[in-house]
Structure formats: C-alpha cells, structure tokens
C-alpha cells in the first residue's frame, strides 16, 4: 500500500506530512516517558520483523498480491504510539534505501499505515477483548479482527487521499481499494495471530509490557 510520488496533490502531501510529523513527535515524547528496559529490544525486533514480513507478498485474487503491514501487531503488543514510531522507522527506511513509497508520499504512508493502522487496531483490539474476556483465545480473536480492520481502514484513508488529490474519484478508488484490502486483511490477521501466539507460547510476560 506504499503510495509512490505523483499520486498525491501538494495540499495532500503537506497535510499528511504535518499530521505524521506531529504524530511522530508525540510518539517520541510518550516513549520518552513510558519506555522501559524491556521495550528496547522488542522495538528493534518488531521493526525487523515488519520489514522482513513486508517483503513476503502473498497472492490474493485476480493477479494481485498483498503483504503484511504490521501496525496492528505493534499496537497490540506495545500500543498505538509505539506503532506510529515503528511504522515511521520502517517506512522511512523503505522509502530512502529501498525506493519503496515516494519521498513526498512518505507523510501519507506513515499516516495511513502507522497512524490509521495503529490506532484503529489498538482501539478495536481493546474494545473487543474487553467484551470477549481476558483469555488467550479472546485475545487472538480480537487481534485477528483488529488486524483485518486496520488494513481495510488504512486502504480507505489511501483512497480518500487519492480522491482529494484528484487522482481517482472516490466512487472508483474507495470500492476498489476497500475490496482488495478486505481480502489482504485476512492475511494480516493470520500473521498477527501467529506472531502473538508465538509470543504467548515463548515469553507471555512480553504481552504485559506497558503500552505506549
């Protein structure tokens, strides 16, 4: 879902840069307040895993592929602001070193995949697991739903940006983006659930780290 340069208008580029820069600033401030010793390697591992997993495009219907985003995984394990921070690290690295995602579009990419993805996943996960209870099973079901929704909502944010930029009208971009990402989101849910289960099985204490 990395937007290349050329798709977004100057106003959209400026707006999303301002929002994302503000988001990163606040994420750093909160991290400064709440990060503990145990968070440090976890932040590194999550960034490394998201980078690696994003390389593994999986086929979905009709000659299209999808890949893991990862914001939901971070939001579930470390909270939404940690998701903003880690997604910003990964997306900035992908943009400048791997030429994936435009330089002007970086603000929008961090907004869609980091802020929209991270916050939607966090609150859906929190809401659902409050309803379903504190069992591991309920956490995994909530995690799957939150991850699926985070991809869908990020793709809707992307469609809105394309529309306000005059690249593709909302009536075209929105159903097309939401449709394909509703399928890609299933992959996101499965990967998130697999990783959370792996953490549960090996170091369940890491699920109780302070959320940022």
């Amino acid at each position: 879902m990395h937007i290349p340069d050329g798709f977004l208008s100057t106003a959209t580029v400026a707006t999303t840069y301002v929002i994302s820069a503000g988001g990163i600033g606040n994420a750093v401030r909160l991290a400064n307040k709440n990060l503990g010793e145990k968070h440090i390697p976890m932040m590194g591992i999550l960034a490394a895993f998201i980078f690696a997993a994003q390389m593994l495009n999986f086929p979905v219907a009709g000659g299209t592929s999808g890949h893991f985003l990862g914001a939901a995984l971070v939001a579930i394990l470390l909270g939404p602001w940690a998701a903003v921070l880690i997604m910003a690290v990964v997306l900035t690295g992908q943009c400048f070193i791997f030429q994936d995602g435009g330089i002007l579009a970086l603000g929008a990419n961090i907004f869609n995949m980091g802020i929209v993805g991270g916050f939607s996943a966090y609150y859906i996960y929190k809401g659902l697991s409050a309803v379903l209870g504190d069992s591991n099973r309920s956490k995994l079901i909530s995690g799957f739903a939150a991850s699926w929704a985070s991809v869908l909502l990020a793709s809707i944010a992307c469609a809105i940006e394309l529309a306000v930029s005059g690249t593709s009208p909302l009536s075209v971009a929105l159903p097309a983006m939401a449709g394909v990402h509703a399928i890609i989101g299933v992959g996101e849910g499965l990967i998130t659930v697999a990783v959370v289960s792996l953490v549960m099985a090996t170091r369940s204490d890491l699920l109780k780290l302070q959320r940022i």
Partner: protein
Amino acid sequence: MNYKKWWLIALGFCLVVATISPLASSSPDGLEKVAEDKGFIDVAQGSPFEIIADYVFPGIENEAFATILAGWIGVLLMFGIAYGIAWLVQSRKNKAAV
C-alpha cells in the same frame, strides 16, 4: 528463557523470513493493481536516486541472492535503527531523572 536469548532468536527468525523472500508473489500489490485497473499508474514517479531499489541489491547477477541480501541488510538496519531510537529515548529519560 532469558530475554537476550529470546530476542536474539527472534532476530534470527526475522533473517530466516527475509531469506525466503525470493518466493514472494511478484504480482502488483493492492494499490498498484487498483492504479493499473483504474488507469492512474502512469502518473507514478520514480525516486530521484536508487540505493537498493525494489529490494534487489545492485550489481549481483543472481536475483534471488540479491533479494535475500537486500532483506538481510534491511532486517539488521531496521533492528538497529529502532533499537537505537528506543535506547536514545530511554537513556534521555534516565538522564532527565537524575
């Protein structure tokens, strides 16, 4: 399992994930496909410079290996940068507390 051992194994796991990256689907992703189908892929602009463009390490003939190498570099780089930022933020906190 002590924590250092846990995250070193996790980092190794990430390197393994990067190693299977040549098996990834090369079909366009969701956004690219929509851009192709809806006729706006042509307005996309390439980057003004290239370092490890499209996850293929330049100058290596074997494309699978060039992809794996790009993946390993990315994994280690992302680990280092995120770890470094978290460490900096944390140590600033400790100094501020003194």
